[in-house]
């Protein structure tokens, strides 16, 4: 029915009692069965949106629709959602089985004990925690607790699963493993999932699509790869990507883009990549470190200050116009710290932003 717009958020706005406008006119939709990441730095409003989806907060204005029905006035328990908290919030005095069974033993969803246990066992099997059934949560590792929390969120067979930074309590190595597990699990169950995180790598690896927030506004609602290769604005370009993007201050005048020691003819830029007309004035030229590489013919002359090894690649660090910038090269490239070299940008991969952050090229 509403598979394309299974979850729909329309012109959502939230102003807290202290006058802080956490969410300013946010609209997006989520396809049925998709795993969508809400990404953004701390304080960008992603948790506020989440709590409004869950019904823990009431929006100031706007609407939220699940499967075509507005749920703004629906109590959390009737929204058919499963919620996984950041700290899991497992009941420490109950065993794993009792924790997973809990949603089926309270309220109007109460079922006979045998039936509740059957359903609980089914989801415990799915999340591979059968063997811990009689243990208490504090006897389990972080990853196992996480799976208990997910199993508990799933037993009521909700239509939507909400996960609030579910990986932030795990160590780095486990995080990689668990995020794959979560993805395969929610795909197996086929549940529509929204996932909050501040970690871009996590979002890129797990999400079918990513909604990037900042300052209570959606910066970009797109596939992960587009966030990286076609950022909407300066914020997105700088938030996504590791190592971070290089930014150069430039001035456009007389058909030329002029940096502190390089020049690019506007006519050399690809015409179909212009979003707006490039008028004369000050701009920021941004280029990803892998798109600015050493070349004899390069027009950016720099002195390499430092080299950082990151496994298969090396980052050449140089100072340009008082700002540190980076070039990402192969391990074999024979360049040492202190070398003077020329760098060349791939002009079809650079971005030009106005000082306000709007993308022009």
């Amino acid at each position, binding site marked *: 029915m509403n598979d394309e717009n299974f979850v729909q958020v329309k012109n959502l706005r939230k102003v807290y009692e202290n006058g802080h406008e956490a969410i300013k006119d946010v609209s997006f939709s989520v396809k049925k069965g998709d795993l969508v990441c809400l990404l953004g730095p701390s304080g960008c409003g992603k948790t506020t949106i989440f709590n409004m989806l869950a019904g823990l907060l009431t929006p100031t204005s706007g609407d939220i629709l699940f499967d075509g029905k507005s749920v703004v006035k629906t109590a959390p328990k009737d929204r058919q959602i499963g919620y996984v908290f950041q700290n899991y*919030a497992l*009941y420490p005095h109950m065993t794993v089985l009792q924790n997973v069974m809990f949603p089926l033993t309270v309220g109007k969803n109460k079922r006979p004990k045998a039936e509740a246990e059957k359903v609980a066992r089914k989801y415990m099997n799915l999340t591979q925690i059968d063997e811990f059934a009689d243990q208490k949560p504090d006897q389990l590792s972080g990853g196992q607790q996480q799976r208990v929390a997910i199993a*508990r969120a799933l037993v009521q067979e909700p239509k939507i699963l909400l996960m609030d930074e579910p990986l932030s309590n795990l160590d780095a190595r486990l995080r990689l493993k668990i995020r794959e597990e979560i993805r395969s699990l929610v795909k197996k169950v086929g549940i529509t999932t929204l996932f909050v995180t501040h970690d871009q790598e996590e979002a890129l690896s797990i999400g079918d699509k990513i909604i990037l927030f900042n300052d209570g506004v959606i910066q970009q609602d797109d596939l992960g790869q587009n966030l990286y290769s076609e950022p909407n604005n300066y914020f997105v370009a700088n938030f996504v990507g590791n190592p971070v993007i290089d930014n150069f201050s430039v001035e456009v005048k007389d058909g030329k883009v002029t940096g502190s020691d390089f020049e690019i003819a506007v006519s050399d830029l690809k015409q179909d990549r212009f979003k707006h007309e490039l008028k004369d004035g000050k701009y920021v030229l941004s280029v990803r470190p892998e798109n600015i590489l050493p070349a004899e013919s390069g027009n950016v002359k720099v002195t390499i200050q430092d080299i950082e090894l990151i496994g298969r690649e090396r980052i050449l660090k140089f100072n340009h116009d008082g700002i540190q910038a980076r070039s990402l090269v192969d391990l074999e490239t024979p360049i040492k710290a202190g070398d003077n070299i020329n760098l060349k940008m791939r002009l079809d991969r650079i971005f030009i932003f106005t000082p306000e952050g709007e993308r022009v090229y």
Partner: protein
Amino acid sequence: MKQNQKRAWLFLAPTIIFVTGFSIFPILRAFVMSFQGGPLIALDWTGFSNYQYIFKDPEFWTAIKNTIIYALVSVPVALAISIMLAWLIFSKVKRKSFFETTFFMPYVTSTIAIGIVFRYIFNGDYGLLNFVLKALHLPAPNWIDDPSMSLTTIIIFGVWTSLAFNIVILMGALRNIDPNYYTIADMYGASGTEKFWRITMPQLIPTIAFLLTMNIIAAFKVYTSVYALFNGQAGVGNSATTAVFYIYNKFQIVGTPGVAMAATVVLFLIILFITFLQRKMMKKIGEQ
């Protein structure tokens, strides 16, 4: 290493001296005295005769019986009321600190002072309590002067005085419960009763165990409230005599310290046994 150890003893010495002098020695002295007879300045060994005396003394048995009834009734009742009130304040009241302060006030007030006020409240003829009871057409007994009522009066007073401490400690414990536990329960539509029995109570078990131990020990040592309520007596015709009252009486009034110490040792053993039993019980409940 060796030198360090010597120096450590030096630092420990003040504490060791104080603990030995004021805690360990008196206990041992009491134990020794329970086997001695005569006045304090001329004690002599009398073997088990003090113990024989108290076990034959009907007054001792009344005291022990009263104390046990007092402890076993007042402690659970007070705890149940405290849990109820703490939960009410915690979940329903907005200005918690005001109520907490109000409830804590009795704890910082002298029991003697409160007891004197309660003497007036409990007064059979012009007391506030009976005024209310009569207005509601309920029986208005003579709380203070009727021997058959004195134990009940002490229990009511005991319940009231122990509320303060219990509520403050329970409020602390309630605050420590992760609010997400309730959020999750709300999301699954758990009712208030379900949340209380499935989340709050199990989370409170360690605190309840602590309070139970503290309250039971305090209840077995009840003295001041009896003294204050009955104007220095143990109720009309000693009807509300308690173990500590008996000990005090034998020591100071009758002048038989040996008998008093024998009763002290018995009381000590009873408290030890009940505390032990109760800890085992709480552990069982905690495991379930």
